[in-house]
């Protein structure tokens, strides 16, 4: 048993071998991470929802102000730019591999190690 309240960390994994279901267990691992992420997004949405309710209760603005707000094409331009930024981040790994193909004749990494290890 632990001493102070600060140091208490609960056991987070149930004892008992965890079953995996997909032919590749890494798919189970990724799916678990995706659902955890979905949970965190839902928490964020709920916080935003509460914020809207608080604002309404204080007479500041309400969900219906948000629903009826008229976005201009130039507002949308700014949003589309943010969408692009999100995509860029999310698909970075895919695009990155192409940068390698396009711009560089990528050396085998092992060869680079050999070179720096053995150049003196």
């Amino acid at each position, binding site marked *: *048993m*632990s*001493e*102070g*309240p600060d140091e*208490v*960390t*609960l*056991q*987070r*994994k*149930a*004892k*008992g071998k*965890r*079953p*995996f*279901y*997909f032919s590749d267990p890494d*798919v*189970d691992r990724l*799916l*678990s991470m995706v*659902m*955890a992420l*979905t*949970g*965190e997004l*839902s*928490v964020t949405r*709920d*916080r935003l929802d*509460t914020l809207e309710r608080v604002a309404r209760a204080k007479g500041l603005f309400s969900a219906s102000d948000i629903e009826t707000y008229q976005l201009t094409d130039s507002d949308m331009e700014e949003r589309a730019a943010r969408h692009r930024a999100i995509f860029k981040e999310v698909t970075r790994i895919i695009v990155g591999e192409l940068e390698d193909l396009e711009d560089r004749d990528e050396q085998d990494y092992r060869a680079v190690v050999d070179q720096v290890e053995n150049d003196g």
Partner: protein
Amino acid sequence: MSIAYKEQHVHDALPETSHDELARQHFVRSFKEHLVTALHPGLKTAYEKRAKPRFVAEHQREPQSIQEVGQVMKQDSHYQAWSSLLRTSQEMMWSAAQIPVERAIADLAAQAAATPKIGSLRLDPDLQIPSYHTAVDIHCQPGGYHTEYIDNDVAQGAIYDRAVYIYAMGQMGVNNADMGDSTVAWLKQEHPDFKPTRILDMGCAVGHSTLPYASGFEGAEVHAIDVAAPMLRHAHARASSMGLPVHFSQQNAESTDFEDNSFDLVVSHILLHETSSAAIKNVIRECHRVLKPGGMMLHVETPPYEGMEPFDTFIFDWDSENNNEPFWRKSHLLDLEALARDAGFQSHTPIQIMVPSAFQETQRSNTFQGGDFGGGGVWFVYGCQK
């Protein structure tokens, strides 16, 4: 299908939860609802259209057992996704219930200790936690029922209390009391003259099924036992905060220190499937020993597999391999008549009936997750008069 929303009754023994901690719990509840309503029905389709035909093509007959259904279903992409998600929802449920408790573990222990108590609490630090509770953490609660992290710890109880509500998606009422409520309602209807004055609830956990007996049979002396101290500490604080006197003690239902012939009614709620082949015999024998002649034993469980279609059995049996319920399958295949008879119940025929949920009709949705309890709208009751 949508399930009417009703939040758990916030009694004094539950931890405070921040906005986001609560939102995380609500997400898990919704996740489970979605699995039940949107993905569960597809299992039957996947079986009929994809898995079964594959079995039939190979064997020129339909699957006839859990194992044979499993052979083909475990390769089915919908079953795989559903199972992986259901297991994940279970892990997220425990985690979401753990977070506020982990943060406030010391406060919760202090608060439970400080609650003015009615009834009583008797702990036995020397009690051996049975191996069927230590081999794996049952239904995936990390640390099981019994683990203690600090002195006077109530953490596992506080977590379990909240998780049961999330698991059942509110379908067991605001106090998770449906198993007790349903049994009390059935007793009063079927046995109006039965007035138990001394009642024992075995494997009471946080006492969520115990309290209906304390409120339902006024003046009765209600005892409740469990092997896990954190459950009992939480249960005592919880019952006290609700003004219901229960005498909690840390004992194994296989062998208690109660006197022979001392109870009118012995009950348990989803206890039997969390024991073992040897233990279940001991439990039933113990029920017989402590019951007064003419007294009643009632165990609330989910229905036995006998007479079920192989596919339904396979789905109902999901928890046995996937939710750390190692005795689930065997417990649903037992000869319950012989079990009672061998334990000494020889004057009366054992009861094996389906009892309707006491939870108000409009709130019930007939939704099971895997095979596990909560929201089915009906409970299986096994028992016998001594």
